[in-house]
C-alpha cells in the first residue's frame, strides 16, 4: 500500500487497505460460496445491480424538485410530508421510506451528511458518491460546512445561515435547491435537467439554464 506522504493531507483519493485485486478475489469468492449454498444466483445480483444503475439515481430527485418548483401545491405537500409527496411520483423505497424535504432560500442553505456511515436516499438519489462516504466530508460537514462547500467550489453569502442535517437515524433528507433565475418559461422536464445531485445534498446550486444549453 503506498506510503502516505506525511505532509500531503489531501488524501481524499480512494484508499485500499488491501490491494484491489485481493478484495475483488474475496468478493468473487463470497459470491461463489453463496451461490453454492443456494443463497442467491448470479442472475439475482445482475438483476439488482441493473435496477440500481437504471432506475435509481438523481434524475428521480430532480423530478421531485422540478415539480415543487412549478407546482406550489405539490411544494406544500412536499414540505409538509415528503414521504407521501415523493410516493406520488413513485420514488419512495428502500432507505427512502421516511423523507423530509428542506428548502434552500437566499438566507438559509441546507446540507446533508451521515457522519456515522453513509445513510442516503437510494430511490431518490441512487448510490452515494465516494466523497459522501469518505472521512473528510463526514468529519467536516457538521464542523465547517462553508469550508467543505469551498471544496465543491461553492461560496455562500456572508449573511446565509447554514443548516446541516446529520442523518443519524432512519429519516432521509432531500434539499430543494433554489430555482435558478431566468427559468420562468422552462417546462418541468427541462427544469429537472438543472437539478444536480450535489444541489439536492446541499453541496451545489441548481444549474443556470445556459449551463445546460
Amino acid at each position, binding site marked *: 500500500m503506498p506510503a502516505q506522504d506525511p505532509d500531503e493531507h489531501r488524501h481524499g483519493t480512494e484508499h485500499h487497505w488491501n490491494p*484491489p485485486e485481493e*478484495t475483488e478475489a474475496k468478493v*468473487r469468492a*463470497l459470491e461463489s460460496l453463496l451461490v453454492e449454498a443456494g443463497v442467491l444466483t*448470479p442472475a439475482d445480483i*445482475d438483476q439488482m445491480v441493473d435496477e440500481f444503475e437504471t432506475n435509481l439515481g438523481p434524475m428521480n430527485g430532480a423530478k421531485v424538485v422540478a415539480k415543487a418548483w412549478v407546482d406550489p401545491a405539490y411544494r406544500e405537500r412536499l414540505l409538509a410530508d415528503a414521504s407521501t409527496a415523493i410516493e406520488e411520483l413513485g420514488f419512495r423505497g428502500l432507505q427512502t421510506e421516511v423523507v423530509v424535504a428542506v428548502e434552500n432560500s437566499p438566507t438559509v442553505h441546507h446540507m446533508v451528511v451521515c457522519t456515522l456511515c453513509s445513510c442516503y436516499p437510494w430511490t431518490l438519489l441512487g448510490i452515494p458518491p465516494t466523497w459522501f462516504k469518505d472521512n473528510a466530508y463526514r468529519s467536516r460537514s457538521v464542523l465547517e460546512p462553508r469550508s467543505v462547500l469551498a471544496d465543491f467550489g461553492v461560496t455562500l453569502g456572508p449573511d446565509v445561515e447554514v443548516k446541516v442535517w446529520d442523518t443519524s*437515524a432512519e429519516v432521509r433528507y432531500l434539499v430543494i435547491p433554489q430555482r435558478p433565475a431566468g427559468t420562468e418559461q422552462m417546462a418541468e422536464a427541462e427544469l429537472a435537467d438543472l437539478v444536480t445531485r450535489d444541489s439536492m445534498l446541499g453541496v451545489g446550486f441548481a444549474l443556470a439554464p445556459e449551463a445546460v444549453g
Partner: protein
Amino acid sequence: MNGPHDLGGRHGFGTVTPEPGEPPWHHDWESRMHVMALASQVRGFFVLDEQRHACEKLPPAMYIHCNYYERWFAAVAGLLVSKGVITQDQLDARVAQFLAGEAKAPVDDGSGDGLGDTLVSIIHSGATAMRDPVGEPVLAVGDAVVAKNLQVPTHHRLPSYVKGKAGVVTAIPGAFTLNDSLAHGGGEDPTYVYTVAFSAGDLWGEAAESPADTVYLDLFETYLTPA
C-alpha cells in the same frame, strides 16, 4: 460505540475530493458486494444494524483507510461466518483459488428462487423501520433537551460530538425500531425518534464558522434527557 466511524467534528482528514461524473460503482465487485449484503439481510442472516456495527468494530486504521466496499466485505463476511452461513476456512480457500486464478465466477444456471424479483420489489416498497408508537412521546417539539453522555461500547446512533450537548426538539418523525437493540440480536423495541437542533456555537465553541448555524440530528428518546 466510540468507534472509528464516529467522525463528526474530527480533524485531519483533508480535502473533500468529489469525482466529476462518478459512476455508482467503480468496480463490478463493488456492485455485487452491495447486492450480496442486501440479499443476506433479505435472507434473514443478519439485519442492517448488525452490519453497521460489524463495520464500526473493524480495526480503526483499516476502517479509516480502506475502500468503502472493503469494509462491507469484511463486515458481511464476518457476519456470515459468525452466523454459520459459510466458514472462514471455506472463504479463505476459495479466495486463494480466485487469487491463483483457479476459480471462476459462478455461471447462472437458472436455479434461482426469484430472489432478484424480491430484491427489486423491496427497492420500491422499502422496508420501513417506522413502527406503531408505544405510548406517548416523553418529549415535545420545543422542549430543551440534552444528549446523554452515552459511552457504551455497544452499537448506537449518538455521535460523540453531540454527547452532553444541549439542543431543542424541532420534530417527532415517529417511533422506529431501536438500532441499539437490533444490532445485538435484540427485539425491535420501537422507540420515539426526535429531530433535535444543536447550535454550531454550542457544538464547536470558538471553532464554529458561525455560531448561529444549526446541526440537526434524529435521536432516539433513550439518548435524550430534558434539559
